[in-house]
């Protein structure tokens, strides 16, 4: 691999969004050290401006020809740009909803969020196992620390569990990389050598190696059986952080999972049933997530299991192994970002007004102040996948691609996945609508303090609600945009 200086400088130009985030990251360290007055406001403004500028730069290059950077380490294409936009929106919204949190005063808070966004952007562009490792570690290590940002007993415990599960998954992933490297002779999984040597190899080690690699990514997207950390971390970490961790690292993991699964599937030439493997993981995630969420009384724990189930639905798009399925997966990702943020942000708003440890504590609050309860209702309805929200459209599209794939190949597991997914959606009604039920239909306890909702939070929720309903009426706006993305490995 010959890397000349000119190639590096040419590549660096294409890396402008990441360079801006890095600069902002370093600037936030310096600001944290020298400025003491109004530090939080300055840091938050800096981060918001950074994400806005980066967003505009990424969007301005859309649509672009795929270009290989740094000798094949990274590739900039529309697929990665699309996910980058989602990460930036995720970072932007997180900073926006954490302005009133006491944890958010530290400059490290902004720094770590920046680092995760940066790592996620790089991860979605990675084409080489070295780059995958470095960017996934940038995301992971920052997440472990952020999970402990409540600075109390519980969140240190959540952080420790997250760390222990995470490092084991990473170690398995690295061993998988080494096995696949030995078998294919290359670390670049988009290389033609990768496909040709692996399709000629009959060794079971291909399957073991690939599965170990996938373990690392499945951990990031909280798919079963790598979901055990999620409930503890979600329960203990500060709510804005949970919103962030449930979206950005998950979608980043999903982006790289799509690439690597398509690579190890060797464009259909693989001797191993990757479609079945992904379907089984999706099936397990949906079943375990939904059934475990049912008895939960802590809203954040319930949402953790809901997030496991949502990963299962996202994986359905990948299980089809078709271009169409992946387009619908991207559509679902956008909707997932919006609805998950809506729910967590509303939860965050309620938490400002008091401890919300159980679902019971929401009783009757919808009668006191209508709007937050209304956005919670819309968010939950969207997560369930009911009209009139885009959550319905997303589920409809992803199930239709699954059905199309079943009609084409008539693989039994796809049919089982289809039926289970539909039944699970019905089951999920019972826990998703639990909070809205308490909000609207229960009486306010006599000893409760009347609360008032904040104006700025409501505006943000209103925008999210409008977008969710608009995308239900006009999904074509987003789908037309996604359909432009041609995905080549």
């Amino acid at each position, binding site marked *: 691999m010959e890397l000349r200086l000119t190639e590096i400088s040419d590549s660096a130009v294409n890396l402008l969004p990441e360079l801006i985030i890095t600069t902002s990251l370093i600037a936030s360290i310096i600001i944290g050290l020298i400025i003491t007055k109004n530090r939080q406001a300055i840091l938050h403004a800096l981060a918001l401006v950074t994400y806005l500028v980066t967003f505009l730069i990424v969007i301005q290059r859309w649509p672009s020809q795929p270009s290989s950077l740094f000798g094949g380490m990274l590739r900039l294409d529309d697929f990665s740009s699309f996910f980058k936009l989602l990460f930036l929106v995720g970072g932007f919204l997180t900073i926006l909803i954490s302005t009133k949190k006491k944890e958010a005063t530290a400059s490290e808070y902004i720094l770590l969020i920046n680092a995760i966004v940066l790592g996620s952007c790089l991860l979605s562009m990675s084409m080489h196992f*070295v780059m995958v490792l470095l960017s996934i570690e940038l995301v992971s290590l920052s997440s472990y620390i952020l999970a402990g940002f409540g600075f109390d007993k519980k969140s240190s415990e959540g952080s420790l569990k997250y760390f222990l599960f995470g490092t084991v998954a990473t170690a398995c992933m690295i061993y998988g990389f*080494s096995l696949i490297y*030995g078998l294919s002779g290359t670390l670049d999984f988009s290389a033609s050598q990768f496909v040709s040597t692996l399709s000629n190899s009959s060794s079971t080690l291909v399957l073991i190696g690939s599965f170990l690699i996938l373990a690392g990514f499945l951990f990031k997207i909280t798919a079963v059986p790598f979901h055990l950390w999620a409930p503890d971390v979600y329960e203990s970490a500060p709510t804005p952080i949970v919103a962030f961790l449930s979206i950005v690292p998950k979608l980043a993991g999903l982006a790289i999972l799509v690439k690597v699964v398509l690579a190890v599937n060797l464009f259909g030439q693989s001797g191993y049933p990757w479609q079945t493997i992904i379907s089984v993981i999706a099936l397990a995630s949906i079943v375990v997530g939904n059934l475990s969420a049912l008895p939960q009384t802590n809203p954040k724990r319930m949402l953790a299991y809901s997030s496991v189930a949502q990963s299962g639905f996202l994986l359905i798009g990948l299980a089809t192994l078709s271009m169409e399925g992946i387009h619908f997966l991207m559509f679902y990702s956008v909707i997932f970002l919006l609805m998950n943020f809506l729910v967590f942000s509303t939860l965050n708003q309620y938490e400002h007004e008091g401890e919300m440890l159980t679902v019971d504590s929401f009783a009757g609050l919808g009668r006191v102040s209508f709007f937050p309860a209304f956005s919670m209702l819309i968010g939950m309805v969207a997560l369930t996948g009911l009209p009139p929200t885009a959550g319905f459209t997303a589920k409809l599209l992803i199930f239709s691609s699954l059905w199309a794939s079943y009609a084409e190949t008539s693989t039994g597991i796809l049919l089982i996945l289809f039926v289970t997914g539909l039944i699970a959606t019905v089951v999920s009604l019972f826990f998703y609508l639990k909070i809205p039920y308490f909000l609207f239909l229960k009486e306010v306890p006599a000893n409760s303090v009347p609360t008032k909702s904040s104006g700025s939070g409501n505006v943000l929720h209103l925008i999210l609600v409008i977008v969710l309903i608009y995308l239900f009426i006009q999904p074509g706006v987003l789908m037309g945009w996604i359909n432009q993305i041609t995905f080549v490995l």
Partner: protein
Amino acid sequence: MAKIDLLFYLGAFLFCSGLLIVFTKKNAIMILLGIELMLNAANLNLVLFNSQKTGLEGQLFALFVIIVAVCEAAVGIAIILKTYHYYHTSVPDQISELKEKP
């Protein structure tokens, strides 16, 4: 060729014993040790497979793995220390405020 096979089995043995340590040992520090063994198994593999090929890809990757392992240990020990401060133990089984509540 036999030597290469032997070294590959050594790597697999290291990986499996690392995984076993992770699952059986109670103390968080011991779990970290197990993880280090797993990473070293990967390093051994990378260097070993690289010796059969041209280029230095595998050896360079091994260097990156070492760097990542150091970062992980640093973050991990900081987190364990923080938890010790609250719970006065570094045994994850005894750190269990967060669990399923019926």
